[in-house]
Each structure stands twice: as C-alpha cells, then as structure tokens.
C-alpha cells in the first residue's frame, strides 16, 4: 500500500489533516491540495490512484467543477473518486431532480463529514480494489 498514492482536495485544513493522518496510518501515501485549482494541477502532474474530493469549497460547490473537469479528461476519469461532503441533504439542491447520491462520476462514492475512520478505510479499500479489477479486465 506504500506505493498507493491518494490525493485529498479540501479547503479546510482540519479535515485534510484529520483524514490524512487516518490514511497515512493505514500506510497510504497521501498528498493534499487546498483549493480546486491546485487540486487539478496536482491531478495532472501526479499519478494518483484515488481522489478524495470535498464538494463545498470556496464560494460554493466548487468541488463539482473539479468533478466535471475530471469527467472530461479521458485519463483522469478512470480514477476512483470518493466524495466527502458535509451537506448530504443539500445535495438535492445542487443537483435538482437527482437522488441524494449524485453520480457525478462513473466511479464515485459519497461519505459524509466528519468521516468515520473505519468507514473511510473500508470505502477507500473497496474503491481501489474495484479500480484494480477494472484495469485487469481492460488489459
């Protein structure tokens, strides 16, 4: 797992630290970006296995913009994305007419803040396994 690289994009440093230390204890290599712009750049330059993405950043739901950009990039869209948000109930307002768990990306999963450590590790692990399985199928 030491060579499994994860990226967190979240503008709240407390969440980043909290989530990062849980993941690092589980021996993942974790980088962080504190705004959508740095996040996109990091995604393009680094080779990440999974992204943890906050939705409510900056002046609103800027995380959604990041998700859309990822979705448009043929290489990035293969990467699993775990969406982390404090606003499950308001999601319907962001995506009118859609269920509370919006499928922004083909691979996304949603966790509510604050993220329970066991649940976080379980979701990360299952998303990575799912992605690895897909890669093998493709090969």
């Amino acid at each position, binding site marked *: 797992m030491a060579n499994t690289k994860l990226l967190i994009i979240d503008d709240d440093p407390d969440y980043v630290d909290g*989530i990062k230390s849980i993941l690092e204890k589980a021996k993942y290599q974790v980088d962080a970006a504190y705004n959508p712009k740095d996040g996109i750049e990091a995604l393009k330059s680094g080779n990440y296995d999974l992204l943890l993405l906050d939705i409510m950043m900056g002046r609103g739901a800027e995380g959604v913009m990041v998700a859309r950009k990822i979705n448009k990039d043929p290489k990035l869209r293969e990467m699993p994305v775990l969406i982390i948000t404090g606003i499950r109930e308001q999601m319907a307002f962001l995506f009118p007419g859609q269920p509370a768990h919006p499928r922004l990306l083909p691979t996304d999963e949603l966790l509510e803040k604050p993220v329970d450590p066991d649940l976080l590790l379980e979701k990360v692990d299952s998303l990575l396994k799912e992605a690895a399985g897909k890669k093998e199928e493709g090969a």
Partner: protein
Amino acid sequence: MDTIPKILIIDDEEIVLDSCTHILAKSDYKVVTARNGEDGIALLEQTKPDLVFVDLKMPGISGMEVLGKIQAHDATIVPIVITGFATVSSAVEAMKKGAYDFLPKPFTPDEMRLIARRAIDKRKLVLETIALRREKEMLREQFAAIVSHEIKSPLGAVQQSLFALDSDLSDIISDEQKNKLKRLQSRISDLIKLVNTWLRAISVDISSIREGFSTLLISNVIMKAIENVEPHSVRKDIQIETTVKEPISAIIGNEVTLVEALVNIIGNAVKYTYMGGNISVCAEERDNKVLVEIKDNGVGIPPDDLPHIFEDFYIGKIKPEGERRSGVGLAITKRIIEAHDGSIAVESEPGKGSTFTIHIPVLKQIDKT
C-alpha cells in the same frame, strides 16, 4: 401601504359617488370612483386601492361578482358592500363572499367615515401580518444557512481531528485516556445529530413530501416506527402494545416521512414514560379516516405547555431524565401529517400520561378500482 389610503367606490348612482367622495375627502383619503363593475375592476390594477366600496345592485356585472373579482385580484384589499335594500340576507351573503362590512343606504357621513377608518385599520393589520410572516420565513431560511455553515462544519472538523487523534495515539495512550477521547467523540456526535435535526426541521418542505406519495397500509407504517424505537423502549422496560383493528383501507402518503412522524411521537412517549411503563398504539378506520392513537402513562404535559408543543423549537418544562431534546420533533410531525391532509391532536394530564391522535383520510373508493 402608501401614507394616504386609497379608496375605490363602485356605484351606478352618480349622486352616491359624489357624496361619498365628498365625505371621504375630508378625512385625507384618495378617492377614485367607477360607475359600474367592469370599470371598477379595471381600476384595481391601476389604483391599487386599500379598500373598495361596492354597491350590490348595479346594472352590468353584479356587486357580488365584483367582490369575487376583488378577492381574486388581491385578497388583502378590504371590500365593503353598499346595500340599498338593507336586507340581512344580502349583507350576509356578501360577508360570506369576503366583504369585511356593509353600509346600508341611506347612511350618514359619520357612519361611512367610521366604517372606512375601521377598514383601513384592518388593511394595515393584514399587510403587517403578511410582512411579519415573510420576515419569519426569511429568518428561518437564514437560520438554516447559519446553522449549517457556522456550526456544523467546525463541529465536523473537530470530530475529524478527534478521529485522527484516536487513531494516531491508539498505541501510546492508556485505556482511561482512550475512554476520555471516546467520550469527547460521543458528545460531539450528539451535537452534530442535534444540528442535523434542526436542519431537518427547517427543510421539511410539504411539496417535496407530496412528491413521494404512494399507496400505503398504516399497519406497515406503525410496524416500522415501532421497530425504530424498540431498542430504547426495551432498555427502559416499557411495553408497547399495538392494536390494529382491521380492515383498514389504504392511505396515500409518503412512507418515510410518515414513519418519521410516528417515531417522533412514540419516541417521545418512551422518553417521557417511567421505567416499566406502558404505551399503546391503536389504529382503526372511522368515517373514511384512519385514526392512530398513541397513548402513554408517562409524566404528561403541563396545561401551559400543551398549546405550544407543536411549535418549532419549543421545549416544555418537564425534562425527561437523561434524554436529549431538540424541540422540533413534534413540529416536524405536524408538518408531515398536514402534508397528508391529516390532523394531529393531543390530550394530556400531568402525572397520568398523554394521548396523541392522528387522523389521515383513507384512499377514496374510486381510486381503489
């Protein structure tokens, strides 16, 4: 409302219009007149009157019809009817149609001024009420935004750091220290739950409840609600006895929210009933309505709390031992029941217990076939 009240008078007799204008002009009103119903209605948009005097008997469209049009145009306009044939029945009919008062011909200038002044006061009150209600709505919405951003996210961040500390320190700290950390986490988690409950109360939207309507059996709703509160009632050794007097027709509703409504009431019953107490949940059909009665032999509700328990954020005087209260459960419940065209009532006697009664209309016979 502008500073000078505007009055529209609709009457076919020129002499009435002239004398009324004369009477009211002295009292600093702006007076506009129309010779018939059609012209009067056309003037509503342009003049935006505060009150309208309408003669009941006119050629063309009748005074009664004009009343209806005024209501439809702006329900806050105060209509007063002028009636030449001062019969009680026509006045009563006009009042039923929404007239605020009536002025029987012939009338004295003082009579007319008095009625006009009262009607202007009435209009002021109506507009004030609307403004206050709107203000209250805005406060509610703003409060939701403040709660969600300013309280919920920092609380979440604290919790996230506690989770991280817990995992960072798990190999180093003693069991006692771990226990302290767990207690911190549990208190924060309670707070987050409380904030979520508040947010839920504010965001209960009747139209969105109605979107999820389907055919339901009340027995299923009751069963699910009881399953939900059972862990708590078992812990307090409270018996919940359910009686469903079949046959009960199906209802149309939103199952998730109806279960939530019942969980709030039965959960309260558990909270406010002593160890070893009893709760009964009865359902039956009566007069095309499904009736659900939830009765406990708990602490009861003091008479001065009783009228307020369905209000948002109202917390009664009696505090259940070791229980959490948000002050919104029953307010949410009431809104949910009302979204189902139902009603909820409560009777209670301090020291004896409380009984909540819910009525929900059954699905109409025609719909069944």
